[in-house]
């Protein structure tokens, strides 16, 4: 392979300093995170009383956010594992984007669940007194496992890139970090062999763990006997929704990184076209599960579920419910089903719609059920009968979303967002088949 081409690839893909827009973006995210921390400090000092959560709605936007984070983290297994195992090579430039989204999201999921605890100092009790019988412990186990697998799946493919990073920027700001993480990489056949085998083991392992993580999250709801949650469909319903939101997130990230780092040669229109098709397929799949989830109970209209379903279809939650359905499924399908809609900007808009709609979809899954218990609410204060998050909850929820974006941004500043060595190897293979 021509050294000029190789050097051009390296030069294009090396991490770069933030420009003015990057600094502004970083600053905004930092301010949002700090606001969230201030709100959390208030919650810590005054207790969960500062939230709008009461006896009935004891899971509010924190848990909606948690489910959203877990869902979006599944993209790592979709792009990296499923596409890799099926020998799909066009996804190579997207693997690291998907993995960093997965790591950032799963980190924030772990954080937000602690935020939801009234006494975070008792978190260690989950480990010291945890019972395997509890779905909460299943979640702790699978989140921890998924986090480690995602970290490893991020780290192993990065190893060959550390050598290039050190070679081309030996005295850069992060050279000590690169040296610590990967100075031992010599690109020897033995190392490459072990590395490839490790990645293969990881991509096989991550699929059942990823399925477990979101199935278990769905079981936190489905093992509870409540209208809307009492469903055997919940695991598959959650998994399909998670793949959709993750793929939507990747569409957004692809566009953002392409624009920010001028990666048009690496993240091409073809990538948007193919990811767009995947999103359409996943949106249709999720739509199918939604129809299952709502149409069958609505056909029967069991007395206990009637108020809940009417509330969703035509009651207080109807605007939010239909917004979530239209925004996360119908509109992206309409946009992406056409070839013109799979161009970068429309695809980005479709991805944005998926992500926004999916966040509200999680809210719709969590809150309305809690407001419709089997036993009627009687003799309770008016504030128990409805739920609207307080500013502290909004600040913490938005802060956690900003924290996820901040982690991705920091990663993109330090590490190459597209695998350099893998891109070089694939270019070589393409040139010399």
């Amino acid at each position, binding site marked *: 392979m021509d050294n000029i081409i190789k050097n051009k690839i390296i030069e294009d893909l090396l991490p770069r300093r933030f420009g003015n827009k990057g600094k502004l973006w970083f600053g905004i995210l930092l301010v949002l995170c700090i606001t969230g921390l201030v709100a959390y400090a208030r919650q810590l000092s005054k207790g969960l009383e500062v939230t709008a959560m009461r006896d009935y709605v004891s899971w509010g936007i924190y848990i909606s956010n948690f489910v959203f984070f877990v869902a979006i983290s599944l993209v790592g297994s979709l792009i990296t594992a499923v596409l890799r195992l099926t020998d799909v090579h066009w996804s190579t430039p997207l693997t690291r984007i998907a993995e960093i989204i997965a790591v950032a999201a799963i980190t924030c999921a772990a954080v937000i669940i602690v935020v939801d605890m009234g006494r975070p100092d008792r978190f260690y009790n989950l480990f010291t007194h945890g*019972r395997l019988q509890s779905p909460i412990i299943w979640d702790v186990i699978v989140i921890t496992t998924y986090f480690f697998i995602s970290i*490893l799946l991020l780290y*192993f493919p990065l190893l060959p890139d550390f050598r290039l990073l050190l070679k081309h920027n030996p005295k850069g700001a992060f050279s000590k970090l690169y040296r610590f993480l990967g100075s*031992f990489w010599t690109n*020897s056949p033995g190392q490459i062999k072990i590395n490839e085998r*490790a990645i293969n083991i990881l991509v096989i392992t991550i699929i059942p763990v990823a399925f477990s993580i979101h199935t278990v999250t769905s079981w936190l709801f489905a093992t509870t006997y409540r209208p809307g949650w009492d469903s055997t469909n919940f695991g598959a319903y959650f998994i399909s929704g998670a793949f959709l939101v993750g793929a939507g997130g990747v569409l957004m990230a692809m566009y953002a990184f392409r624009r920010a780092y001028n990666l048009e040669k690496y993240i091409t229109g073809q990538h948007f076209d193919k990811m767009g098709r995947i999103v359409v397929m996943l949106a249709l799949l999720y739509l199918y599960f939604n129809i299952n989830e709502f149409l069958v109970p609505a056909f029967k209209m069991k007395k206990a579920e009637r108020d809940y379903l009417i509330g969703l279809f035509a009651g207080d939650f109807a605007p939010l419910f239909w917004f979530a359905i239209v925004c996360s499924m119908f509109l992206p399908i309409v946009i992406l089903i056409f070839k013109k809609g799979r161009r970068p900007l429309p695809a980005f808009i479709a991805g944005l719609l998926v992500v926004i709609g999916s966040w509200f979809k999680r809210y719709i899954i969590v809150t309305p059920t809690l407001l419709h218990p089997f036993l009627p609410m009687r003799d309770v204060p008016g504030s128990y009968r409805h739920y609207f998050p307080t500013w502290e909850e909004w600040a913490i929820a938005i802060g956690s979303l900003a924290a996820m974006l901040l982690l991705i941004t920091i990663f993109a500043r330090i590490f190459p967002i597209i695998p350099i060595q893998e891109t070089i190897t694939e270019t070589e293979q393409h040139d010399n088949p």
Partner: protein
Amino acid sequence: MTTHKHIHLSVILLLFVCTASMAQNTRQSLLLNLGYYNDNNYMQYLKATAKAKINGKFQVIPGVPVSFYIAQVADENLLGKAVTDVYGEAALPIPAMARTLWNSGPKQTFLAVSTPYAGYESAQTDLDITKAKLKIDTAAGRKIIVTLVQLQDSTWTAVKGADVKVAVKRLGGDLNAGETPTYTTDSLGSVNVDFQRENLPGDASGHLVLIAKVEDNDVCGNLSKEYTVPWGVPSSYKTSFNERTLYARRGKSPVWLEIMGYSIVAVVWIVLFYLMGQIFKIKRMGRQPFNG
């Protein structure tokens, strides 16, 4: 003509202003009820209930501050203050400081006073109570004898013609001990009830709790008395739940189920530790010379 119009307008305006100002000053009347309670001849407390007529129906009013007095409304006779809850009830145990006044005679007057609150007028009510108590005893053949006595001068005398409920205390409420829920006291102030609940599950030793109640009596208020008798069937809860399910309490679930659960986690983590070991292997290989 114009002058007439002005006069009409002024009158209408004046009427409107008067009505509006009257409407602002109008407060809705509040109904206070006061009750006296004596549980097991031990715990004595007062309970006030605040109600108001809203849309033609009496509804309970929460949040009303109520002051309780003994004998008369005076600062030195204040027993305490309470606020009505979501059921419109404010309860106050009679404090020990009221002992002197309480012991001064067999009858006592209690008063509840509420100040104007959230559009409701102030309200006051009183209640005259004669000190009374219930006694429960049993006789051979599973008979229950409940006696109601009241204090007259300094002696306890029987109360005739009062309604007394006699029941067995159960988890969800009271179960009639005899044929009917209520009995009327005879000239000795007693009711005799034949216990007719055979084979009723009791606690582990077969104990049942009998309860006698006088409710909303004009003279005595609300009294209750409990008495434990060994007339039930000893109950023991047997379940094989702990022997067959993963959801059993810690250490009780079947070992093979726990092993299955933990081994799934263990297998995944063994793979992860193996992969972490591979990183060290790659590191070791990096120390060996290679000219790539």
